[in-house]
């Protein structure tokens, strides 16, 4: 999974340094967490380097009438500088100014704004204005910026923006959303039909990696909901999804969601041809062991067809005494029953 998050962080850092993503490819080996910290340090350093100028300009705005300040901002400073200046203005003054800007200019400002420094401003802007700017960002394809702002607006405002997004764009915004609790709130508020469309389009357009990234960011409850919707799309598309989960080793997220799936949904996913692979089953069992999720594992085994049950018995992990002991002790059903099932499976 790290490679996907690393790509997202590289894109964000490239935006900060105003270079193409490819110019920063050499940073990929340090990983997503280190890249996130590095971006924060670089952003802070660049901001600090201009702090004296920023504070002087902020002081100037208090001397002039707001209409003149607006004119100077739009015609002399431009959106890049205004975005930096906004961070040092008194929030109340910044809000007054933002309301005066043309929405198109405010949209350009938002592209260059560090949302964490402007949280107090964003929260005081009228919802309609934020939705207008957000919709313009969507139209411009500025999904990274949208993803970064999602964490700083109310869920209703975020929904107001994404309701006009295509399923593919919605998925990308989700991937770029920095605050996972905000993402969780938005996904929870999206209707099943919208989320199902996102899943279906992800399959049709090969955005499996993005779908897996989303899956990993969600709670167990939302993961189960998403997996249930995945189970409802055509088998061909599900197969690609399962391959992406396995390729990115995202099984811990899937295992966490198994508890919320009904038997029919789980059977649809668990009996796919791609699952009938002893090495894959072995990886799933080991992840379930690490997550101490024996009940989920048992629930999945109980819906397998004959062909898949045959493959389960070939997974090396199930022959290991410590894993057998763990299964017998923690599945939540009678140890005798578990032993009998393992015996029946030939383990």
């Amino acid at each position, binding site marked *: 999974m790290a490679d996907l998050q690393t790509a997202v962080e590289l894109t964000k850092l490239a935006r*900060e*340094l*105003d*270079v193409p993503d490819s*110019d*920063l490819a*050499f*940073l990929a*080996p*340090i*990983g997503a967490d*280190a890249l996130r*910290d*590095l971006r924060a*340090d*670089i952003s*802070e*350093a*660049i901001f*600090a*380097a*201009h702090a004296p*100028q920023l504070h*002087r*300009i902020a*002081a*100037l705005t208090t*001397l*002039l009438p707001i209409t*003149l300040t607006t*004119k*100077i901002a739009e*015609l*002399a*400073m*431009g959106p*890049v*500088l205004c975005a*930096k200046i906004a961070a040092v203005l008194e929030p109340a003054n910044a809000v007054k100014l933002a309301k005066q800007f043309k929405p198109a200019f405010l949209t350009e400002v938002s592209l260059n704004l560090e949302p964490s420094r402007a949280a107090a401003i964003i929260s005081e802007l009228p919802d309609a204005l934020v939705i207008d700017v957000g919709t313009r960002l969507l139209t411009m394809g500025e999904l990274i910026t949208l993803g970064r702002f999602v964490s700083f607006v109310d869920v209703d405002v975020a929904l107001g923006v994404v309701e006009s997004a295509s399923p593919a764009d919605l998925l990308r915004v989700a991937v770029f959303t920095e605050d996972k609790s905000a993402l969780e709130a938005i996904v929870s508020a999206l209707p099943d039909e919208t989320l199902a469309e996102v899943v279906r389009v992800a399959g049709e357009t090969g955005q499996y990696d993005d779908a897996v990234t989303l899956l990993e960011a969600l709670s167990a409850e939302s993961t189960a909901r998403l997996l249930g919707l995945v189970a409802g799309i055509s088998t061909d598309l599900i197969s690609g999804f399962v391959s992406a989960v396995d390729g990115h080793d995202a099984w811990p997220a899937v295992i966490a969601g198994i508890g919320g799936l009904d038997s029919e949904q789980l059977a649809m996913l668990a009996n796919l041809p791609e699952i009938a692979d002893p090495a894959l089953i072995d990886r799933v069992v080991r992840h379930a062991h690490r997550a101490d999720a024996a009940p989920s594992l048992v629930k999945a085994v109980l819906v397998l067809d004959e062909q898949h049950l045959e493959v389960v018995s070939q997974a090396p992990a199930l022959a290991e005494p410590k894993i057998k002991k763990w299964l017998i002790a923690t599945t939540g059903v009678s140890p005798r029953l578990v032993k009998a099932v393992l015996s029946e499976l030939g383990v």
Partner: protein
Amino acid sequence: MNTELSRLAERLGVTTGRLQPLQALAKRDVQQLDDLVSSTMTSGAEAFDKGIEEALRFVPRPLRGTARSLLFPGGDRG
């Protein structure tokens, strides 16, 4: 700790320990990152200078002196 990393740490105002993950990179890569940060800071400073000069043109004449002394407290510009 290599020179390139120390230079980048100094530019960012952080300890070299904070940049420990970058030790895995080649020196030339750290140098390249430092160059990019430096370039971004320089272009940003130039943009500010230009923006401030432009802003002064819009300030009404009676306020221009006050604005100039506020924006250039050392009197080194304008």
